[in-house]
C-alpha cells in the first residue's frame, strides 16, 4: 500500500511541476527570460534547498531521463532540418564540432586546472564536460524561441550543436577512464582515443542513416490504426539511440541523423508525426531541465560559485570565441557572423549530464565537476540566453519573425509523383513581390485574387493578398518557400532585401570593385559572382545567401541549378542610417575633448 501511495505522490508532484513549468513560460516570454533557465530554476526551487524540499540524488535516473530527453530533442531537431538549408554549413559545422570542441575543451581545461589548482588531466575533464554547445538549448532558441538567423550562420550552429555531443561525450568518458586506470604510454592512449572516436562516429552514423531509412520504409509500408504512426516514430527513436549506444556508437549522432533522413523523405502521416514530436520535445525540455535542477544542491554551489563563474567567463569570452575564429575563418565567415557564432555557444543540459559521468564512475571529487558544470550552464543560459536575440539584431544577422511563418498548402496529384501542386499566400513583404524570381522549374498554375481565379497571364505581377499556385517537383518545393517567405529585413527597414543594384552572375568581382571602390583581396578579383557563391556555399547557394565584399554585401537573387544567375549589391553606405553617424561623431568628439 505504501509504495502505491508513494507512486501516486510522485505522479502528483511530477504533474504539478510540469504544469508550473508550462505556466511559467507565460511569465518568461513576457520578460524575455530564457525559458530553459526558468525550468532549471523551478527544478532547483522544488529541490532540497528550495521550498519544495525534495531530496533527489539519483544520478543514474537523471542520466537515463537525460539520455531519453536528449534523444527525443535531437531527433526532432533532425526531423525539422531540411537538408537544403544545410548547404554550405556542413564543412564549418563539422569543423566546429570536432576541432572546435577540442580547442574549447583544451583552453578551458588549462584555465580550470589553473583556477582550481588541479592536475592537468582533471582540469581537462572540466573542459571536456563544458565544451559542447547544447543542442537542446540551440534548437529551442531557433525553433521555439523566435530567433531566426541568416541561413548559413543558423544552419552551421544548429548542425554543430547536434553533432558535437559525440566528441564531448567521448572526451569525457575517455578522460574519466584515463584518470581511473593507471596511465599507459602516451602513444597507446592516443591510439585508443582515435580508435574510440572513429568507432563512435562510424557506428553512430551507420545506425542513424540506416535506421532512418528503415524507419521511413517501415512507416510507409505498414498501415497502422489511427494515431500510432507518431508513437512508432518515438519508439524507433529510442530504439536507435539505445542500439547505437549498446554497439559503442554515439547515440546522439544516430538519432539526429535518423531524424534528418526521415525529415527529408516522403513520409506518411508526416503532419501528425511532427505535431506529436513537437509536444514530446517540449515535454523533454521541461522534464530534463527540471530534473537537473532537482539534482543539484544549490547550497553546495555557493562554495564553487566564484571560481566556477570565472571558468564560465573564460569559456564565454575566450574558450569559445578562439575556437570559433580558428574554425570558421577558413570558410569566409564575416567577423559579425563569428562573433554571433561565439555567443550562440550555449551550454545546457548536455554539460550537466556529462558531469554526471564522473559521479557515476566514482572519480575523486566528482561533485566538483558537477557543480562547476552547473554554474557554467547557469551563467551561459542567463547571460547568453538573455542577450542572444539582442546580439543577433545588433549584428544584423537576425531575421526576426514576422507573424506567422510561411504557410504552403500542398496537394498531391494522384497518378504521378513528378509534380505536386503548391499554393502560397503572397504578402507585401514576400521576396517575390520585392524582386525575387520564380525558378524555371516551377510552373505557374493559377492565381486567386479577390476571390476570383485568374490564369497566370491574366494575373500578371503578383500582388499582396494573392494566393499563387504552382506545379513543382516535390523535392524542390522547399526552395519555393524562400521566394514567398516574408523577409523581415524588408519590414525592419525600408532597404531593398536584394540590395540596391543587381549584377549578372558572369560579372567579375574586379568590375564590381572598380565601380564602387570596394577593397577586395587580390585573389578574389578574377572570380565571377557565380564562382564566388559556388565556392563559399559548397556549390549549393540559395536565394538570399549573403557574402561580404569589402565595404558591401552581395546577396544571391536568382539561383537556378545551384548557380547564382544574378546578385544584388548592398553598399554599406547605402544601408547606413542617414543621420545617426553624425550624432555619434559629435558625442565622440565631446567625450574626447572632455578627456
Amino acid at each position, binding site marked *: 500500500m505504501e509504495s502505491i501511495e508513494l507512486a501516486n505522490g510522485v505522479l502528483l508532484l511530477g504533474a504539478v511541476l510540469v504544469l508550473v513549468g508550462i505556466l511559467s513560460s507565460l511569465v518568461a516570454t513576457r520578460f524575455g527570460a530564457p525559458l530553459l533557465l526558468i525550468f532549471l530554476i523551478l527544478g532547483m526551487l522544488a529541490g532540497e534547498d528550495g521550498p519544495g524540499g525534495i531530496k533527489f540524488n539519483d544520478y543514474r535516473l537523471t542520466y537515463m531521463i537525460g539520455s531519453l530527453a536528449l534523444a527525443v530533442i535531437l531527433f526532432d531537431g533532425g526531423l525539422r532540418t531540411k537538408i537544403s538549408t544545410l548547404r554550405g554549413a556542413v564543412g564549418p559545422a563539422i569543423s566546429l564540432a570536432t576541432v572546435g570542441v577540442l580547442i574549447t575543451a583544451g583552453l578551458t581545461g588549462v584555465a580550470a586546472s589553473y583556477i582550481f589548482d588541479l592536475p592537468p588531466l582533471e582540469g581537462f575533464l572540466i573542459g571536456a564536460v563544458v565544451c559542447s554547445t547544447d543542442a537542446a538549448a540551440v534548437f529551442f532558441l531557433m525553433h521555439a524561441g523566435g530567433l531566426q538567423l541568416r541561413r548559413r550562420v543558423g544552419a552551421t550552429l544548429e548542425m554543430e550543436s547536434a553533432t558535437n555531443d559525440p566528441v564531448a561525450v567521448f572526451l569525457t568518458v575517455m578522460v574519466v577512464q584515463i584518470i581511473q586506470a593507471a596511465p599507459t604510454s602516451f602513444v597507446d592512449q592516443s591510439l585508443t582515443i582515435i580508435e574510440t572516436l572513429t568507432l563512435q562516429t562510424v557506428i553512430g552514423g551507420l545506425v542513424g542513416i540506416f535506421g532512418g531509412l528503415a524507419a521511413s520504409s517501415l512507416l510507409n509500408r505498414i498501415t497502422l490504426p489511427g494515431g500510432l504512426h507518431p508513437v512508432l516514430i518515438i519508439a524507433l527513436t529510442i530504439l536507435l539511440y539505445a542500439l547505437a549506444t549498446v554497439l559503442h556508437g554515439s547515440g546522439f549522432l544516430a538519432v539526429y541523423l535518423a531524424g534528418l533522413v526521415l525529415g527529408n523523405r516522403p513520409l506518411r502521416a508526416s503532419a501528425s508525426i511532427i505535431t506529436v514530436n513537437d509536444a514530446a520535445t517540449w515535454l523533454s525540455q521541461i522534464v530534463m531541465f527540471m530534473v537537473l535542477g532537482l539534482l543539484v544542491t544549490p547550497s553546495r554551489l555557493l562554495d564553487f560559485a566564484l571560481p566556477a563563474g570565472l571558468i564560465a567567463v573564460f569559456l564565454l569570452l575566450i574558450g569559445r570565441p578562439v575556437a570559433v575564429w580558428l574554425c570558421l575563418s577558413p570558410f569566409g565567415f564575416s567577423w559579425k557572423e563569428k562573433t554571433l557564432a561565439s555567443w550562440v555557444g550555449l551550454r545546457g543540459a548536455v554539460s550537466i549530464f556529462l558531469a554526471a559521468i564522473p559521479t557515476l564512475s566514482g572519480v575523486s571529487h566528482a561533485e566538483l565537476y558537477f557543480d562547476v558544470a552547473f554554474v557554467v550552464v547557469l551563467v551561459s543560459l542567463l547571460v547568453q540566453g538573455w542577450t542572444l536575440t539582442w546580439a543577433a539584431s545588433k549584428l544584423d544577422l537576425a531575421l526576426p519573425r514576422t507573424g506567422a511563418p510561411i504557410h504552403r498548402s500542398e496537394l498531391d496529384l494522384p497518378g504521378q509523383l513528378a509534380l505536386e501542386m503548391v499554393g502560397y499566400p503572397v504578402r507585401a513583404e514576400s521576396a517575390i513581390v520585392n524582386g525575387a524570381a520564380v525558378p524555371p522549374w516551377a510552373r505557374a498554375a493559377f492565381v486567386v485574387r479577390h476571390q476570383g481565379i485568374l490564369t497566370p497571364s491574366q494575373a500578371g505581377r503578383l500582388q499582396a493578398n494573392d494566393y499563387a499556385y504552382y506545379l513543382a517537383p516535390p523535392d524542390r518545393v522547399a526552395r519555393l518557400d524562400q521566394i514567398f517567405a516574408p523577409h523581415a529585413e524588408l519590414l525592419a527597414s525600408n532597404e*531593398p532585401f*536584394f540590395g540596391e*543594384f543587381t549584377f549578372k552572375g558572369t*560579372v567579375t568581382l574586379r568590375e564590381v570593385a572598380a565601380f564602387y571602390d570596394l577593397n577586395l583581396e587580390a585573389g578574389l578579383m578574377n572570380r565571377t559572382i557565380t564562382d564566388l557563391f559556388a565556392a563559399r556555399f559548397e556549390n549549393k547557394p540559395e536565394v538570399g545567401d549573403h557574402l561580404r565584399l569589402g565595404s558591401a554585401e552581395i546577396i544571391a537573387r536568382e539561383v537556378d541549378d545551384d548557380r547564382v544567375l544574378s546578385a544584388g549589391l548592398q553598399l554599406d553606405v*547605402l544601408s547606413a542610417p542617414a543621420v545617426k553617424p553624425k550624432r555619434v561623431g559629435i558625442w565622440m568628439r565631446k567625450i574626447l575633448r572632455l578627456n
Partner: protein
Amino acid sequence: MEISDLLKPEAVVAHLKAGNKKQALQELSKYAAEITGVNERRIFETLLERERLGTTGVGNGIAIPHGKLPDFKRMYGVFARVDKPLDFEAIDEQPVDLIFLLLAPEGAGADHLKALARVSRLLRDPVMCEKLRGAESADGLYMLLVQNEAQAA
C-alpha cells in the same frame, strides 16, 4: 551630401522622349554633355558599360544609371521624367519613368557612394515618387527634389 550639391535646376527634364532604354541613356547623355561640357559619346559609353554588368533599374519605376569618368571636376546629376514609361530591364520588370543620372569624377571614392546613397534614399520614398510623377513642370520637379531635403535635415 545634398541633392542641391548634385543637381542644378537646368539639369531637370520634365518630359524626356525616349522609346527604349538605350535612347533614354542617349538623351540623358546629351543633357549631361551640355551641363558638363564633356563629350556626349564618352558619357553614353560609360553608362552602357555600367548597364552591361547589370541593370540600374532599382524597381518601382526608378532607375539610377551612374558612372565615373576622369574628365569630371565634380559630381553631376541629371533628373528626368519619361513621358511613356519604358522597359529598363529593371529588377522588378516594371517600366521605368523616373531616372536620376549620376556622374562622378574618377577617384571620387566615398563621395560617389554617398551621393548614390542620397539619391537612392530619396527615390525609395513612395510618397516622393508619387509627387514627382504628378509635378507639372521641371521647376516643380526641382523644388520637390530639393525641398524634401530641407524637411529631412
